[in-house]
């Protein structure tokens, strides 16, 4: 560090270890803003590690749960988890940390942990875990996590981006309709693509690393057929045209259909123009019905019609002449006119009768204009069209021969179709180049061929055919020759629309033509392609058109996947399992007609086949979770990895494994050197010490109270005597079921005495629902509230049973809303009632009614909470001159707090003398100590006279601890402060932070048994003392014990029972001593209540009468109505 840093008032803590957490908690209490980051997503799960269990056996996450929840609720603490720390750099203001916030695809402020999404999720990672899951309901933050990996290859490779894994997962779960819906989101022609798609997805399927790729296409076909077979709908959700714009699509091939469907779904009115009498384009006239039956096409067209698309058939649109006219009638025009002119080989004899361009040939056959053929038919080419031509010809009595210039294995046609063609008697003559057609009288008779041999492989690895010499030429007799060597564009360059030399429409990257509001897609732009590619292209143009028309909002949100999260490794125990074979009609029979050859997969086959999917992306993005989440709306599939730069004045590294290494004296490191034994108490002390150092580094930035003040509790809004009861019942998103009679009961409750509002809410812990409760309370003047949710008490303290949801709801209800905690009767409906609905709904209803009845009854009897007022001094006294005490004093001095150092030895370091806020009192000898937090009295002997010094907090050195008596109760003997730490099997030691004592506000500079340096121990004590000083009004906690003075006999049993010095005794006018409770110190455990002989001590919240009534009610000895 060359120059001192001008540190920002913020601390970054990396690593949610016990040390990191304790540091965050103390800094949070000190009001210093904190950013807490870790790679783990769940504090609770992380802190449950066995090596971090406390010596009492209690796991850290349980013991410190209240602190963890306070961290979440503290507005100045920002928790970033899971996060990846990319880089850490020094900056003039401290540190600059670049981190990636990993998406978990859930909004933690909304998730209710109801578990509906988990129920719905079809992806099982293993037997116990779905793709969406949570550790426990105690998770912090309390939200589910979605395990999403990078995009599965099948989806990546699909031109349409169909969520293959998603529909396979749904299929496996038997949710066929949902699966089909998911396909249709991206592919409106599932029945067609399920038959004729070139399925690039299967080519990349990772399953083939293991055995064979999954039969994705066949599953798609099954889903589409299944819908028809089981009488399901083949219509989409009717889409209302929400937009005024009208769009014309010219051409009803795959590109046009896909574009039209999308545009309709965006809300436009769409008209599709088709020159033929029936829509479908190449799908109808280019593919044989034995592959794609006509009714399949009709069905898909019906579906598209149901989306609101109008088809205008028999209407030839000339893309050049008619454009202007169309533009007048429509707001945008999409040209998806295909490239339906066959390319001809350009060899002699093409004009002969008997020489056919393939598409024309097929159209004539499929439109039944040709009904029979002569035997000798040659097909030139090796693509799917060539096969189609051959198979169609075979069905009309021909014996077709395919003449192909490469090897058979190089044919681009689908291997399955080649096989089927061969079965049907089609011959393939490979390595044959046709060089001319020969005929007589204008009629084809022979085809002249020259053999070829495989030459150098081209870019795709396929050998280029090298033609032999003219001398090798031979002739073959054919009556018909079909040229199936591809298609070319139909358009000629003219004015208006810009067209390429190949006759294809020219567009920009996003498929706009040179004419405004005219778009083009499909083969007309790209040249011949596959069905899916054409469709994908069509959709792209639709998207561009929609964007240009200002309809960006109508575009569906696209779920995001983290690009850098790898697929799970294929488990070694996945058994080998081949693809299923598909039933087909026998060749001898099928070649006699045009009926479909393939019979498709059976349902059991599909079940098994979908089970073969390796679920590469884990979460399949089927979005069933979002649907199950419903109104809660907490699922965020669109979340992306956010990279952010956090600036802070101080950096605390608690977990070195997750941070890139950084040098520097001012980096605070709170982890044990490698190889040392994990001691959780030592970790905590290191955490405190880190907070202390952070506090010192940010010296004087924070305002510290000085002198002394009366800290009065925030005035509780008084309980208005008029009872206007509001009843709010949370059904937890119906996640555990619901009984309609419960609604009926709540409905009836509206008419009950004193009830002004009764309502069942779907999820009370949602921000807007909580706000609604607050609003209703105000609007209806509700003075007493029954809150039936998962919250078990409305009190202002966090107990280890609290959850993120509970505390969130309480926070929303009581923070600055004017609703008093004393107005609210809370009952744990979820735990007591909803839980059992699934097993016994009658019992659940019965319990519900009882619970609601007694809650309503109790709400009417609510009492106002007490308001403890206390005297606070803001000076800390440090007693003792050991090394640890020195560091305590020093830390507090640097942080700008008022300190008196008593019994300070003579050898005071020079640096310390400069602090004006430090008073050193060498000669003072401390006689005894009394009082508690805020109000300690220290009896001192100095220079021969005795005096009392007051302090708000006290730090005792180790020698001082053993020699100075603490007097808790005036008139009774004192004790020496115990430094024991809770240990399994040992009675009588309350739960305390290391360094803290059972006396609130009293800390030990050098607690024995904690293996860290004296310097760190001293610093830790300093931060404990600093954090305990009140920074705002103390609120009533509501559960503190009260003692009835008239009943108290002064036996003193409570005094002995209380571990926190909350009870003191004073003499009354009868001359006897009675107890009083300091509400600020009482923790509400009630141990004093059980030893009180007269019942003078009782809790105002859940008192003896409450417990007795509770017993009576749960034991069923009480009328339902009472």
């Amino acid at each position: 560090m060359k120059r001192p840093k001008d540190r920002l008032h913020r601390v970054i803590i990396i690593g949610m270890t016990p040390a990191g957490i304790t540091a965050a908690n103390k800094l949070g209490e000190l009001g210093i803003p904190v950013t807490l980051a870790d790679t783990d997503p769940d504090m609770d799960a992380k802190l449950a590690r066995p090596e971090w269990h406390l010596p009492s056996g209690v796991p850290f996450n349980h013991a410190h749960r209240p602190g963890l929840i306070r961290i979440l609720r503290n507005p100045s603490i920002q928790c970033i988890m899971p996060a990846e720390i990319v880089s850490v750099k020094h900056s003039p203001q401290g540190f600059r940390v670049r981190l990636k916030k990993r998406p978990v695809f859930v909004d933690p402020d909304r998730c209710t942990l109801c578990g509906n999404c988990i129920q719905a999720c079809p992806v099982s990672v293993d037997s116990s875990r779905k793709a969406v899951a949570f550790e426990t309901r105690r998770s912090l933050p309390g939200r589910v996590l979605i395990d999403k990996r990078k995009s599965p290859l099948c989806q990546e490779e699909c031109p349409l981006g169909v969520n293959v894994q998603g529909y396979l997962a749904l299929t496996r779960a038997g949710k066929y309709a949902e699966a089909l819906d998911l396909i249709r989101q991206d592919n409106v022609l599932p029945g067609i693509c399920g038959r004729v798609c070139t399925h690039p997805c299967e080519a990349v399927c990772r399953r083939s690393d293991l055995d064979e790729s999954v039969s994705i296409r066949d599953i798609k076909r099954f889903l589409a057929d299944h819908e028809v077979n089981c009488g399901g709908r083949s219509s989409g959700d009717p889409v209302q045209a929400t937009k005024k714009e009208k769009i014309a699509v010219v051409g009803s091939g795959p590109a046009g259909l896909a574009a039209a469907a999308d545009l309709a779904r965006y809300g436009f009115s769409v008209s599709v123009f088709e020159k033929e009498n029936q829509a479908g384009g190449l799908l109808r006239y280019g593919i044989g019905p034995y592959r794609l039956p006509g009714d399949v096409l009709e069905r898909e067209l019906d579906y598209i019609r149901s989306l609101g698309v109008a088809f205008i058939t028999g209407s030839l649109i000339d893309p050049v002449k008619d454009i202007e006219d169309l533009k007048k009638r429509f707001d945008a025009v999409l040209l998806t006119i295909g490239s339906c002119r066959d390319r001809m080989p350009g060899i002699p004899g093409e004009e002969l009768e008997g020489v056919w361009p393939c598409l024309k040939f097929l159209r004539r056959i499929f439109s039944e204009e040709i009904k029979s053929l002569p035997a000798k038919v040659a097909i030139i080419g090796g693509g799917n069209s060539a096969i189609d031509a051959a198979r169609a010809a075979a069905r009309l009595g021909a014996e077709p021969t395919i003449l192909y210039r490469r090897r058979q294995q190089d044919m681009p046609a689908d291997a399955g179709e080649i096989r089927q063609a061969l079965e049907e008697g089609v011959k393939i003559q490979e390595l044959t180049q046709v060089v001319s057609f020969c005929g007589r009288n204008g009629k084809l008779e022979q085809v002249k061929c020259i053999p070829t041999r495989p030459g150098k492989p081209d870019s795709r690895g396929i050998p280029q055919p090298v033609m032999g010499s003219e001398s090798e030429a031979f002739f073959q007799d054919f009556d018909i020759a079909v040229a199936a060597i591809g298609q070319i564009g139909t358009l000629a360059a003219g004015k208006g629309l810009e067209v390429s030399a190949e006759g294809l429409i020219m567009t920009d990257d996003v498929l706009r033509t040179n004419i405004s509001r005219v778009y083009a897609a499909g083969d007309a732009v790209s040249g011949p392609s596959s069905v899916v590619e054409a469709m994908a292209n069509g959709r792209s143009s639709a998207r561009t058109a929609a964007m240009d028309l200002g309809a960006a909002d109508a575009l569906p949100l696209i779920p995001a996947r983290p690009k850098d999260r790898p697929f799970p490794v294929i488990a070694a125990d996945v058994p080998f399992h081949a693809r299923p074979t598909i039933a087909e009609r026998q060749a001898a029979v099928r070649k006699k007609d045009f009926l479909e050859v393939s019979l498709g997969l059976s349902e059991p086959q599909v079940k098994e086949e979908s089970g073969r999917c390796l679920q590469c992306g884990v979460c399949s993005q089927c979005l069933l979770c979002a649907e199950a989440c419903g109104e809660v709306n907490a699922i965020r599939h669109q979340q992306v990895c956010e990279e952010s730069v956090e600036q802070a004045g101080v950096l605390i590294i608690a977990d070195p494994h997750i941070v890139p290494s950084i040098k520097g004296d001012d980096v605070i490191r709170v982890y044990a050197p490698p190889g040392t034994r994990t001691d959780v108490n030592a970790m905590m002390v290191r955490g405190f010490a880190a907070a202390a150092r952070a506090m010192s580094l940010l010296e004087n930035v924070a305002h510290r109270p000085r002198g002394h003040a009366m800290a009065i509790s925030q005035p509780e809004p008084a309980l208005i005597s008029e009872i206007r009861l509001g009843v709010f019942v949370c059904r937890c998103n119906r996640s555990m079921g619901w009984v309609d009679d419960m609604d009926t009961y709540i409905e009836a409750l509206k008419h009950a005495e004193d009830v002004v509002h009764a309502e069942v809410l779907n999820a009370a812990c949602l921000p807007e629902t909580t706000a609604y409760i607050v609003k209703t309370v105000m609007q209806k003047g509700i003075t007493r509230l029954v809150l039936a949710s998962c919250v078990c008490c409305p009190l202002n303290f966090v107990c280890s049973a609290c959850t993120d949801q509970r505390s969130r709801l309480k926070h929303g209800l009581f923070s600055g809303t004017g609703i008093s905690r004393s107005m609210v009767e809370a009952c744990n409906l979820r735990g007591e009632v909803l839980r059992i609905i699934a097993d016994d709904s009658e019992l659940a209803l019965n319990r519900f009614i009882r619970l609601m009845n007694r809650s309503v009854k109790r709400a009417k009897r609510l009492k106002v909470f007490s308001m403890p007022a206390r005297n606070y001094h803001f000076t800390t006294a440090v007693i003792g001159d050991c090394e640890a005490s020195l560091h305590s004093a020093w830390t507090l001095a640097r942080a700008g707090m008022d300190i008196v150092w008593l019994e300070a030895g003579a050898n005071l370091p020079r640096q310390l003398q400069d602090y004006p806020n430090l008073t050193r009192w060498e000669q003072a000898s401390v006689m005894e100590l009394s009082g508690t937090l805020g109000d300690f009295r220290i009896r001192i002997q100095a220079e021969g006279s005795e005096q009392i010094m007051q302090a708000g907090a006290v730090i005792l050195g180790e020698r001082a601890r053993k020699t100075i008596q603490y007097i808790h109760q005036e008139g009774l003997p004192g004790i020496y402060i115990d430094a024991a730490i809770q240990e399994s099997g040992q009675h009588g030691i309350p739960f305390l932070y290391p360094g803290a004592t059972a006396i609130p506000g009293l800390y030990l500079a050098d607690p024995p048994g904690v293996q860290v340096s004296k310097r760190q121990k001293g610093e830790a004590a300093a931060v404990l003392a600093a954090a305990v000083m009140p920074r705002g009004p103390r609120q009533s906690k509501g559960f503190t014990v009260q003692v009835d003075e008239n009943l108290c006999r002064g036996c003193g049993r409570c005094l002995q029972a209380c571990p926190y010095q909350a009870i003191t005794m004073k003499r009354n006018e009868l001359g006897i001593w009675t107890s009083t409770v300091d509400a600020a110190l009482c923790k509400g455990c009630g141990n004093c209540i059980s030893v009180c002989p007269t019942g003078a001590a009782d809790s105002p919240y859940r008192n003896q009468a409450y417990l007795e009534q509770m017993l009576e009610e749960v034991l069923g000895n009480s009328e339902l109505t009472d």
Partner: protein
Amino acid sequence: MAFQTLQDRREKIPSEIKMVRIPCTGRISKALLVKAFEKGADGVALVGCRTGACRYGSGTLTAQENTDDARRILKIMGVGEQRLRLATFLPDDAEGLFEFLKTFSQEIRTLGKSPVEVSEKSATKAIDVQQVARAVSKYDIFSCQDCGKCSSACPLSLTGKSFTPRAVASAMIAGDIDSPMVIEGIWSCLTCGRCYERCPRAVNFPEFVREVREIYQDAGIKAHEPHGGFFQSMMRVQGSASLNMDRWSWLPESVHLNMKSKILFFGGCAPYFDIFFRKFLGTQTLNILLDSLRLLNFFDVQPAVLSNERCCGHDLLWTGDEKGFRKLAVLNAEAIHASGAEQVVTACPECYRTLAVDYPRHGIETKFKVIHLYDFLNREIEKGAVGFKPIDAHLTFQDPCRLLQEEELKLLPRKLIGHLKPRSFREISESETGPICCGGCAWNGCDAYVKAMQVNRLKQARVSGRDMLVTACPKCQIHLKCAMEDPFLGQALSMDVKDLTSLIAQSIYWA
């Protein structure tokens, strides 16, 4: 925490398990444990944190002690100690808890229904004005002359408590039956009978109070019951007919009993008291029973005892629970009749008064004669064949109210003390107030004023070096010891407390 995990996991927690959430096991008093049985539980598990993991340090230990005590009491009462369990877990041990709940509920299912009969809760009604009026006339409250002698004798009034029999009487006559002052007064009265003794018109104020308490109970106006109502609960539990009690198994073999004897010894509640007050007072009321039996043996009587002896019902009667009292009385009377005993000896003033006076008064047939042990001892000692060892103490004596109310018995304790050989004996107070109640009679009305009264009493007792307080009722011993427990005044109040029966048993010998 662990239970919550089970709830969250929707584990099939046995449906008979009903959960009451508590802040800490140490919060749960013995009273609440026993009340659960009174209210119909077949088994009770107190579930909390494992030793060393109690957030408040002492909760688990307190719970252990309370559970142990309550178990011992349940055993004596014949409810069965197995029905109450303390189970502790670490917060992450949901499996352990689940296993325990399943096992425990299986165990309870094997044990079957609890023998405790749940008394039907009668619907609470408004105070029956007619009934109050009848009581006013029955006890001739009208004849009060408003002279104030009662108030100047009432030990509570004397401490400064705003209660006087006179004021309550006047209010009742005026029909003010439910003002806080009257209600507080009715429940505060110690029923010691000092007022009755002084009243020139002999208005039996204690009996009147008792009857009004019955009316109050019916109207749901409850007493403030000290000890969380433990004793009332315990007694109501004993009202169940099918208990198989274990009252006497603790007796040493040196005590000789004869179950066919025509003389039956009725022990009273001492066994429960000693367990209940074990931790704090070191109460030794059980010795009264043991010493009584030894004295009977000493005079060659081998009495019978009732293994199913219930509480006599005194405390329920004086808390206004007449129904509860009646159940106990009927069960006891039947048991005594079945034993064939003709004489019932008891050392407890309350048992004596209840069996001898209140059973017949409430129409319970008693075909036996009730004798106080002191009566028996006095007659035997006066035969003259016994001597007494010297007692190295300066004695004073605390009168039990229930003996004072019986003319023929009230002088007996002093007669017996007269036989003893202490260093000296002096009455507690020379003043005119006379004997004062120990401050607790039917486990109600204990408060700061009662304490102040006891403190004064003990201070007076300590005057001029008296160092042993002789008592004749277990409750006097309990309550005065409790007063001595004061952390501040304890030094000034502390003295030996010995029951008269024990003192006699320890010093008597055949001359």
